[in-house]
């Protein structure tokens, strides 16, 4: 059983194709068109963002992300509850970590905040891996939007961003921007993952993207979106 060179090449091509297909399906789980029927029926106007769960090793991840969730959601047309006060309210009621906060019954959240929906975020990755030549900061997060009246899941998604994107893209506007921001952060030597978390938040929570959250009532694009993609 000695495969010919041509056969070997075919095998190699086959493996590459199979690998590519695997990668494509990996993406396809996110690309499959989202069922928005519950979302469209619920028509939430206001979103309570709970302090994100943090599955990473970096303690600052929760508040780095929480401080950057308002922009994408508000610009998408939602009222976003003041994240600093919401956190304070939980703390004053004896809930000091996101795990405890995420455990509060939905009816209780609805009663106190009067929010239509709550957003539960889980930060899967947050941090910088340092290397001599090229360090990388990466932030990955998942989110779930729950209707506080019907307790139905309206939407869920995930997103990631990395400081290495700028280098890999070999230029382009976004590459230049990411590189510039990261360099700036390096210079000021503060938390290098923080601006990356901002990009992750924007990718995760802005409307008008495939399988993303829908526009809210305060957006001029509210309910102008085509039927589910």
């Amino acid at each position, binding site marked *: 059983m000695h495969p010919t060179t041509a056969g070997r090449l075919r095998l190699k091509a086959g493996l590459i194709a199979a690998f590519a297909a695997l990668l494509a399906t990996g993406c396809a789980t996110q690309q499959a068109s989202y069922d928005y029927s519950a979302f469209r029926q619920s028509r939430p*106007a*206001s979103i309570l963002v709970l302090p994100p769960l943090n599955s990473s090793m970096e303690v*600052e991840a929760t*508040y*780095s992300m*929480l*401080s*950057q969730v*308002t*922009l*994408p959601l*508000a*610009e998408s*047309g*939602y*009222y*976003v*509850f*003041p*994240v*600093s*006060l919401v*956190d*304070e*309210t939980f703390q004053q009621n004896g809930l000091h970590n996101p795990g405890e906060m995420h455990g509060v019954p939905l009816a209780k959240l609805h009663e*106190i*905040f*009067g*929010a*239509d929906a709550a957003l539960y975020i889980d930060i899967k990755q947050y941090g910088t891996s340092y290397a001599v030549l090229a360090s990388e900061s990466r932030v990955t997060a998942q989110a779930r939007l729950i209707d506080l009246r019907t307790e139905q899941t309206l939407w869920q998604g995930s997103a990631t961003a990395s400081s290495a994107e700028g280098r890999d893209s070999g230029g382009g*506007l*976004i590459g230049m*921007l*990411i590189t*510039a*921001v990261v360099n*700036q952060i390096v210079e000021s030597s503060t938390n290098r993952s*923080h*601006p990356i978390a*901002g*990009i992750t*938040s*924007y*990718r995760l929570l*802005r409307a*008008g*993207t495939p399988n993303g959250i829908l526009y809210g009532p*305060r*957006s*001029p*694009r509210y309910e102008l979106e085509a039927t589910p993609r």
Partner: protein
Amino acid sequence: MKSFALARLAAALPAAGLLLLAGCATNSSQPLYYWGSYQSMLYGHFTKEQGPQEQIAALEAGLEKARAKSLPVPPGYHAHLGILYAESEQPDQMLRHFEAEKTLYPESAAYMDFLMRKAIKSD
């Protein structure tokens, strides 16, 4: 479509945010709000790198700029100012900003009322 999405993404970069929001306004809708330093103040608030006075100064200056640009400030902006005034023992200003949040965003009414009831009770 892709470059449009990237342009929108770029708007999230804190350093370039406003510039790019303005930039992508040419092929999308205008930003709904004047953000100023709201989100970076929130971060400073959570990390305690920025004290209430520092934040109040930045956010009050932002209110002027928003007025000059005829844009509303985003959800939570006034409410956050309210908590900062509460921390600096200025309850009248606190109430004023909680009311402002409620007027600008009636969606916040139940929560603002809850906070104001608590503030009055603890007096």
